[in-house]
């Protein structure tokens, strides 16, 4: 089994951003993404209702280092100031590096 290292970028943010975020991510070169519904708390308070405008999503993007850096920079510039959002990156091993 040949494995290669790629970046897994995870974003937790407001559900209302789902469609714009996905558009941005794809424009910045990601080949895919995975979204799930989550709840939580951070500096902008509790976000955990059955209610779209105060619930969160987690978006995960598996990509190469450059794309991860570009997405992170873009999100930091455009969304950090106004939206509940956190972002973190870690290394993962994948089998088909050309895919990501």
């Amino acid at each position, binding site marked *: 089994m040949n494995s290669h290292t790629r970046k897994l970028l995870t974003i937790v943010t407001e559900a209302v951003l789902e469609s*714009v975020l996905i558009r941005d991510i794809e424009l910045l070169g990601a080949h895919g993404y995975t979204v799930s519904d989550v709840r939580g708390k951070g500096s902008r308070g509790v976000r955990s209702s059955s209610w779209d405008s105060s619930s969160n999503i987690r978006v995960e993007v598996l990509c190469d280092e450059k794309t991860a850096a570009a997405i992170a920079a873009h999100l930091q510039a455009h*969304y950090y*100031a106004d939206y509940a959002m956190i972002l973190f990156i870690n290394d993962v091993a994948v089998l088909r590096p050309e895919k990501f």
Partner: protein
Amino acid sequence: MDPVILFFLLGLAAGLLRSELRLPGAVYDLVSMLLLLAIGMKGGVELARQSLAELLPQTLAVMTMGLLLPAIAYPVLRYAGRFKRADAASIAAHYGSVSVATYAVAAAWFASRDIAFEAHMPLLLAVLEIPAILVGIVLARGLSRDIRLDAVVHEVFLGKGIVLLIGGLLIGWASGPEGIMPLAPLFFDLFKGILALFLLEMGLITAAHFGSLRRHGAFLVLFGVGMPLFASLVGTVFGVVLGFSVGGTAMLATLAASASYIAVPAAMRISVPEANPTLSLAAALGVTFPFNVLAGIPLYHALATKVHVFAGG
């Protein structure tokens, strides 16, 4: 007291006591879909009976009201309330728009007292959702700045609420009173029960917003009561001028007095992201919604009755 209001109070109490009670998101979605479709369909069935010649001027007048109200609220918030520009604009937009839940509670209250109102009210409800959003965006950004207009239009006209309300209107209108009958058991007979579930969740949400009220001070509470009172006067005037019945006038006053907490928050979050959503939701949900359903509706009806007696001679 109407039992649906008791459901609101139950939710409120459970929320304040930090009970584990919570409506799952999917159930909240289902319940609000059913309400929006039912309100739309009920109005649409009646639309078939109306002449377009009569509806158009009313619709335009009501849109004007939807432009007027946030324009009045904004300076109050900006200068008396000392809110930042974006926040003042966003709160103003919430109060210029309408709350479907408040409409539903008022409709139930009127129905149980046999108070008739113009049957095309759901059309005005749908129409009123939108102008305030545009005013809010312009107030926050000015006309010059580049606004992601496509995103805004999409958010406003294709948001879940508008699509279901307008969709329901069209379906009701196309089906007519006869055609719609097979759907009545789900959409009309269960209406009050569904509304009760919805208000249970509204109570829980309201309780969650009480906390932020405490943090954001007395002005929001004052505004949350004062603005609907003032707006109900405006609505009453529009109702009388448009020749509405007492019930219709009271309903238009109620719509004017109500503050959006679904369509507008979502639209503002995308188009005026620097506005703090906690402020507008705390006022709209923590103050104005409970004020309207617990005290406002009867008040606006009394007002409409008085004014009609006075105007009618």
